[in-house]
């Protein structure tokens, strides 16, 4: 739908149209408006296909866009791997840029006056950093050295998720963390951090012993599968929790706005606006909360996994 933002939403498909806003797109969008074409990168038939834009791709004749996705002209099937730079990738870069600038400014001041009290932006960053360091990582990762070594990961994780959540709340912004692929990638890394950190700390043997769940050996046929499922379930839960929280708020907002079209009257607007403001504020809280929860749960899981055998 994003290609035609000016089309009057018909009552029948307004929700579908609004929901499609939440997805990923080929192109950089602010709100429903496309600002930039983004390059298409396809891996297909054993070689890489690079196009500066979807238009250029269609002109080249091998692929065409169908419902926002490139497909082969020849048989109408999607390519083996679509590695295109999409809207949410650009939003990640935007977020990284913002965090980078903020941290750069803070670090510059730390370098200039390492012993002065922090102020302004530096103070806000320092409060978050100290909180993540002491309350999230060191409090939950029992192994001190492991905590120190993984501190950069946890700090980056928190700020990455936070800035992406907040970018989604900026009017016109798209929420990268409201996509399963993004949260899935973060959860995958968390999975490797949790188990890799545990193996590095307590050794492979002790890590495998964790799979017994502390039960007797004859229970292992039941416990080992459960523990293995649990291992993946933790990462899966991280992935879905963040995705669902970020998406749910947006859907609630869209639904409230959609009510106006659903009832076809402007009289419902005050109710929609009042509830939207409430949900929007709630989402702001959730943006911080979910960044915190993802980080602290990863730390807690890492702490549990890297414990010496009970």
């Amino acid at each position: 739908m994003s290609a035609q933002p000016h089309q009057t939403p018909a009552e029948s498909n307004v929700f579908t149209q609004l929901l499609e806003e939440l997805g990923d797109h080929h192109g950089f969008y602010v709100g429903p408006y496309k600002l930039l074409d983004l390059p298409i990168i396809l891996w297909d038939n054993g070689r890489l296909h690079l196009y500066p834009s979807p238009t250029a791709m269609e002109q080249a004749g091998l692929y065409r866009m169908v419902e926002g996705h490139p497909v082969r002209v020849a048989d109408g099937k999607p390519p083996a791997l679509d590695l295109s730079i999409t809207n949410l990738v650009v939003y990640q870069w935007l977020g990284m840029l913002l965090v980078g600038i903020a941290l750069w400014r803070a670090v510059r001041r730390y370098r200039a006056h390492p012993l002065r009290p922090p102020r302004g932006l530096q103070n806000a960053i320092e409060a978050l950093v100290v909180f993540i360091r002491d309350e999230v990582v060191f409090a939950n990762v029992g192994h001190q050295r492991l905590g120190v070594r993984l501190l950069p990961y946890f700090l980056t994780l928190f700020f990455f998720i936070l800035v992406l959540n907040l970018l989604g709340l900026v009017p016109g912004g798209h929420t990268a963390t409201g996509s399963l692929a993004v949260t899935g990638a973060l959860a995958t890394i968390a999975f490797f951090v949790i188990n890799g950190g545990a193996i590095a700390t307590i050794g492979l043997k002790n890590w495998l012993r964790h799979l017994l769940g502390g039960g007797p050996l004859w229970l292992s046929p039941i416990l080992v599968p459960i523990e293995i499922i649990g291992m993946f379930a933790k990462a899966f839960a991280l992935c879905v929790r963040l995705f669902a929280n970020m998406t749910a708020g947006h859907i609630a907002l869209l639904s409230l706005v959609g009510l106006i079209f659903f009832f076809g009257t402007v009289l419902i607007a005050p109710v929609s606006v009042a509830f939207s403001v409430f949900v929007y504020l709630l989402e702001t809280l959730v943006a911080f909360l979910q960044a915190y929860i993802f980080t602290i749960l990863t730390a807690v899981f890492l702490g549990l996994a890297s414990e010496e055998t009970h």
Partner: protein
Amino acid sequence: MPNFLELSPGLMFWTLLNFLLFVAVLARFAWRPLLNALEQREHHIAEALRQAEQARQDAERLLQEAQNRLQEAQQEMQRLIREGKQQAEAFLREATEKAEQLKRQKLEEAQRELQRQVERAYSQLYAEVVDLVLEGTARLLHQTLDSTTHRRLVESFLAEVARQN
């Protein structure tokens, strides 16, 4: 399936790449200096607090010492004053006694001297009176005169004596 529920491998790939790069870059250029600075400042503050505590204790100790010294000095001063008073009193008493004694001595000497002078004067006077009487008598003996003449003679003698004295 709605667009937003898709699990796009491309987006996943880019997210992995972005995030891992972000971790690497931030770890090197942001977190390390930031955490180091934090630690440095925490050390600095802890050190400053420790020093402040040390300084406070030192100051307290010095104050205590100063107060002790002051008290000692006051006690010393009072002792000195007391002693000085006693000494002064003793000195005064001694001096008074000495002066008294000296006075008595001088007085006695003076009285004795006076006595001597008086005695000498008496003896001189006596000798002179004797001489005068002798001289007068001698003159009386040398001239046998009437009573009028005696009278005149004695009167002239007395006048002479008066003139001489």
